[in-house]
């Protein structure tokens, strides 16, 4: 379709060019005939017919010629073909005519009366010009054919390449949709193209979806596993209570225990819902500038007596120049509390826990000199329900750090774990957060 349009456009352009050339040639022919006519008339008036005949023979240019007819139409001199005499004769009896003569082909002629009833006709044989026109015509047609052929071939070549790439993309997507989660679209390898950009975007989408699916799978199996434990325990305890003595006091104690266990499950649900809300960016939360020094100081004050009572030392060093982030203060405080609680819960007595706020970043750092976390599983501690202690004997629901990660994330922060040698260092960095005072982009 595009090729056809291309050919038609090219043909139209060729035809227009040819028409313009023809028009210019007709004008040139007219001008040349008029010039020749002047020459012939002068020579005829000044030197007579004999001189004109002789001159025409010697200076014949093979293109222009004349003839002189008497009143009866008999030729007196010259070899130019006789023009058809219009009837009636034009008023001034001068006229242009264009006709095809035998043997010499097409001619253009100018006829005008001369004294004594004579009629002078001058004109041009157009064969040479037509031959020239034909050369142009053939050249244009030839060029058009070559260009159209090249255009069609390259069009086919390009569209075959594109189609092959699109086919490849469709197959990869088909494979992915069919359950092959590792299927990815190959790039054409021909530098940056729109299709490669599209392939890249689709691959990123697949990667992200894979991560989400993987996360979802991990979370749902963890939920099933983690809620089965307290519920199974709950069931067991109810069975024990029913098998025991049928006294109100006995049942009451059993119910107190049951209440605690159900509360534990509800807390787990609450935490999971909070994580989900925060990961969705916690719509509806009103953010305000939060002074990290102030909030960290407050949380450290809250935990210091508990840390001391449990035999750990909590120390705090605020930033030198002050640090602020856009956040919801309670949720940020809660997230920091989770980091401290993690350090207090998973370290032996005697451990020192240090909280530090740094203006650069800004960052909040919670480090301890406890046993630390092996590098292989350090990245996993932020996952929901992750516990280093697989017997799950330590307290907590395994959601504290996941909740903190989601909370910091909701405010543009990023929580990472490092080796504090010895111990674990948790760093909440707000490099990506909008720092207060910086103009909004």
């Amino acid at each position, binding site marked *: 379709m595009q090729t056809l349009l291309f050919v038609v456009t090219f043909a139209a352009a060729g035809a227009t060019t040819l028409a313009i050339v023809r028009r210019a040639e007709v004008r040139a022919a007219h001008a040349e005939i008029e010039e020749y006519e002047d020459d012939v008339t002068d020579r005829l008036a000044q030197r007579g017919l004999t001189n004109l005949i002789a001159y025409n023979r010697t200076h014949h240019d093979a293109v222009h010629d004349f003839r002189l007819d008497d009143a009866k139409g008999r030729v007196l001199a010259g070899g130019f073909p006789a023009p058809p005499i219009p009837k009636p004769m034009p008023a001034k009896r001068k006229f242009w005519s264009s006709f095809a003569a035998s043997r010499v082909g097409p001619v253009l002629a100018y006829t005008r009366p001369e004294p004594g009833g004579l009629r002078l006709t001058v004109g041009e044989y157009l064969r040479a010009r037509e031959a020239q026109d034909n050369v142009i015509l053939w050249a244009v047609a030839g060029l058009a054919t070559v260009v159209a052929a090249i255009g069609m071939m390259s069009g086919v070549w390009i569209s075959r390449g594109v189609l092959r790439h699109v086919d490849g993309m469709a197959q990869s997507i088909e494979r992915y949709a069919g359950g092959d989660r590792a299927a990815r679209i190959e790039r054409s390898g021909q530098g940056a193209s729109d299709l490669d950009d599209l392939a890249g975007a689709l691959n990123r989408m697949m990667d992200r979806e894979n991560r989400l699916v993987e996360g979802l799978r991990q979370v749902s199996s963890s939920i099933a596993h983690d809620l089965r434990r307290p519920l199974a325990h709950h069931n067991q305890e109810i069975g024990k209570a029913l098998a025991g003595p049928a006294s109100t006091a006995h049942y009451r104690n059993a119910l107190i225990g049951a209440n605690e266990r159900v509360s534990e499950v509800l807390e787990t649900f609450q935490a999971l*819902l909070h994580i989900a809300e925060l990961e969705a960016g916690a719509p509806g939360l*009103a953010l305000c500038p939060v002074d990290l020094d102030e909030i960290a100081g407050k949380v450290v004050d809250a935990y210091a007596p*508990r840390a001391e009572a449990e035999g750990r030392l909590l120390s705090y060093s605020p930033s030198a120049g002050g640090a602020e982030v856009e956040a919801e203060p309670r949720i940020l*405080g809660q997230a920091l509390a989770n980091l401290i609680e993690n350090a207090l819960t998973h370290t032996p007595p005697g451990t020192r826990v240090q909280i530090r706020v740094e203006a650069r970043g800004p960052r909040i750092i919670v480090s301890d000199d406890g046993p630390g976390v092996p590098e292989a599983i350090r990245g996993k501690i932020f996952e929901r329900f992750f516990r280093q202690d697989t017997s799950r004997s330590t307290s907590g629901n395994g959601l504290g750090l996941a909740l903190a990660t989601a909370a910091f994330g909701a405010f543009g922060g990023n929580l990472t774990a490092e080796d504090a040698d010895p111990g674990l260092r948790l760093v909440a960095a707000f490099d990506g957060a909008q720092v207060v005072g910086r103009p909004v982009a």
Partner: protein
Amino acid sequence: MIIEDDGRTREFVSDGLGARGHEVAAERDGRAGLLRACDRSFDVLVIDRMLPSLGGLEILRALRTASIDTPAILLTALGGLADRVEGLRGGADDYLVKPFELDELEARLEAIGRRPPTVGAAAVLRKDDIVLDRLTRKVTVDGVLADLTGSEFAMLEMLMLNAGQAVTKAMLVEGVFDLHLSAPGPLIEPHMSRLRAKLVRLGAVDPIRTLRGVGYAIAAH
């Protein structure tokens, strides 16, 4: 009055509080609840955040706009992270996440019900020879200045403002530290023993009673 569309929660609250000697009215519909609350005959309101016809936040906003400042506690469902902040901003005096213990609700209702709605309580609170000045933020025992931290002062202030009523551990953690903990005990207990030790060291009779499973209280005069 409780405005709650869920029958079980409504019954749990109205029967539970009724059994403890409170007079409880119940409404299941938001509009009807708002109309009844307008006659200012209730001491406190318990309003569910999610109601079919008119939400808890809208009821509160309407009441506060009409200058009806009956203290109100908002009930929110599990999750609802933004609800808490929004609820307090929207004119609630406190909020509670469902499900909750009756003790917790009662303690909070008494705390907000006793709080004079507009003007603050007395600037100086007394209990035996303990004097707490809310303006200078100083506590003296028999005239001797007690060296309390900011959080210890805030805890004592909360207990004295609610003298005669239970203050739960969760209320203290929220009121003093702005934190929400599933197990507030380990955090608040060391603070409380330090506060008590400081007061006793200055010769005071320990004014704080521990209410097992609920929280703490200071007896009224």
